[in-house]
């Protein structure tokens, strides 16, 4: 039978039951669009993670003391890295810079007449800003009352902050100090990666003179500043060697001695963190996509169901086709074509719908949209396949219709 004629008859049959066909297609659209959305969001997340790591933070090694995975209740990181650790880490082969970072407890920040309550700001050293891109101004200098803010912090008050203006910081004990904003950055380049997931205002204060969290250094026996986190910027050529050396040092460090039991010291590169994040995102994507595939199965059942109804309704037509020379194969192909058309139309509608859903999700999460074209192709192919497979049994039933019985029907 002429394929064009088959297609023409199939299209007319589907159009003669517009609502029914549309609802069946809708079932497929929901399934495929869900798959496309989740796969695309997953791919976009991965691309975002890879993009972070490939940036200026590629050679960073992040040192943290965190509760072990199988430990007790989740707890915040502790300030265990002492000044002694920081200076020892500077001696490690391949360490270009070592940037400590601490949390400075405050109660409020005031700009002009606007006061914003705040728990803490970041204390770090000028080295944190080496390699950072400044939107305005420069890094602070150690020992001065200068601060650097990020873009989000610039707009945290009723008037926009700009370089050169004065900010008033109120400490926990009630002491208030005036500081001068000297720079605006997007990110320091030494902070833990993936901060873009939580885009919030940041204020960077110099450790000298502001940071005053101290512990007794076990190695030296004197009180020293202690930090929450240390970033070692390694020589690009020897990242893994530097990482091993850092890990080796950590075993005998003040941090190892100071950290409570149940805590682990880790020295992980951006790549390490990206790997575990990617793994997590991958697992989540697979799980959610699995759910979407289930809904696609429901769509497939919808096609099979409606095609069976169609075969029953059109038994007489099938008889006529056979009486005027149609073979079993002609009938089979006709019904398969109809089912496949339902799947194909579903897939064609679902792809833009799914991509639109993914776009909304990535806009919301503030990450770039990465369209996995291969997967979109797979989605369309799956639509066709779902239609064809769901139509297989109904079409087989149609092909087996006995023309004598069919024509006798009233």
């Amino acid at each position, binding site marked *: 039978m002429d394929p*064009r*004629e088959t297609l023409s008859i199939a299209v007319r049959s589907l159009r003669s039951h517009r609502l029914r066909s549309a609802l069946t297609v809708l079932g497929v659209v929901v399934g495929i669009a869900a798959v496309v959305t989740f796969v695309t969001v997953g791919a976009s997340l991965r691309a975002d993670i890879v993009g972070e790591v490939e940036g200026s933070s590629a050679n960073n090694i992040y040192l943290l003391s965190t509760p072990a995975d199988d430990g007790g209740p989740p707890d915040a990181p502790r300030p265990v890295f002492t000044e002694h650790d920081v200076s020892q880490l500077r001696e490690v082969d391949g360490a270009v810079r070592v940037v400590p970072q601490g949390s400075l407890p405050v109660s409020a920040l005031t700009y002009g007449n606007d006061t914003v309550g705040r728990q803490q700001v970041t204390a770090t050293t000028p080295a944190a800003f080496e390699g950072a891109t400044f939107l305005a101004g420069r890094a602070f200098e150690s020992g001065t009352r200068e601060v650097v803010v990020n873009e989000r912090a610039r707009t945290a008050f009723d008037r926009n902050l700009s370089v050169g203006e004065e900010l008033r910081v109120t400490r926990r004990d009630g002491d208030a100090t005036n500081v001068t904003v000297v720079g605006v950055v997007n990110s320091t380049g030494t902070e833990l990666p993936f901060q873009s997931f939580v885009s919030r205002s940041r204020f960077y204060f110099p450790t000298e003179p502001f940071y005053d969290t101290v512990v007794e250094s076990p190695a030296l026996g004197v009180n020293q500043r202690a930090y929450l986190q240390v970033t070692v910027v390694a020589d690009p050529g020897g990242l893994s060697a530097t990482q091993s050396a850092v890990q080796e040092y950590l075993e005998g460090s003040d941090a190892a001695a100071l950290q409570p039991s149940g805590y682990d010291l880790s020295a992980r590169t951006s790549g390490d963190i990206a790997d575990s994040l990617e793994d997590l995102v991958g697992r989540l994507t697979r799980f959610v996509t699995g759910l979407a595939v289930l809904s696609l199965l429901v769509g497939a059942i919808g096609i099979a169901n409606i095609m069976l109804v169609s075969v029953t309704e059109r038994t007489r037509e099938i008889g006529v086709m056979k009486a005027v*020379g*149609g*073979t079993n194969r*002609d009938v089979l192909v006709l019904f398969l074509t109809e089912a496949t058309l339902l799947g194909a139309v579903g897939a064609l509608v679902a792809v833009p719908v799914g991509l639109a859903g993914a776009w909304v999700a990535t806009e919301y999460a503030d990450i770039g949209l990465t369209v996995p074209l291969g997967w979109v192709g797979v989605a369309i192919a799956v639509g066709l396949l779902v239609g064809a497979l769901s139509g297989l049994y109904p079409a087989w039933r149609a092909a087996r219709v006995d023309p004598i019985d069919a024509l006798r029907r009233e």
Partner: protein
Amino acid sequence: MAETAHTPEPVVALEGVSKTYELGGETVEALADVSLSLPAGSYTAVMGPSGSGKSTLLNLVGGLDTPGEGTVTVGGRELGALSERERAAVRGGEVGFVFQTFNLMPRLTAVENVALPLVFQGWDRDRRRARAETLLADVGLADRLNHRPTELSGGQRQRVAIARALAPDPAVLLADEPTGNVDTDTGARVMGLLDDLHAAGNTVLLVTHERRIAEHADRVIHVRDGVVECIEDLDDGDRDGEA
């Protein structure tokens, strides 16, 4: 005139055909040892009450059914020896069905319905359309080419069905109670059309339970309980009286 020694090859021949059905655990003998032949250009009516086996006879000749015993030959091909695919080709090419209930495809236009058998025969689109238009013009429906069955009267539908039956230029035209679903006047016009087709040289096999309709034929085969009771030859005088 009747020279048995030199009859032409029959278009349809049944030899010792039997057919039984299982119906509710009981075996029903629809046809028992039926033999008959339709010469080319003949006009034959099969008459009998319902359940007599006349529909089974028509289904066998039309290649919709296969005999339990015996042979059915249409256009020189023995149907029992053919594959399903080949029998479909015979249905679409050698025989033309005209049904009591028209059996047109509801979503196809008149011209598409007429062209449908040619689709299965593999004709190309332009040839199909030209042939269908000619045939519809022949049955007086040149102005109804693109109408759907629901937009046509009963008589018009039956004429579309007759045009469809003629599309592949079949060896035999099979009409199953062709006037059963139309009023008397329309029925007379349908029968007039069949008479004309016979006059033009077509072989016609008509199944009916009405004597008045059967008398259009040259010959009436009376069947009852699956056997041929008698074959009645009608002269022209009887037919003209009815028409």
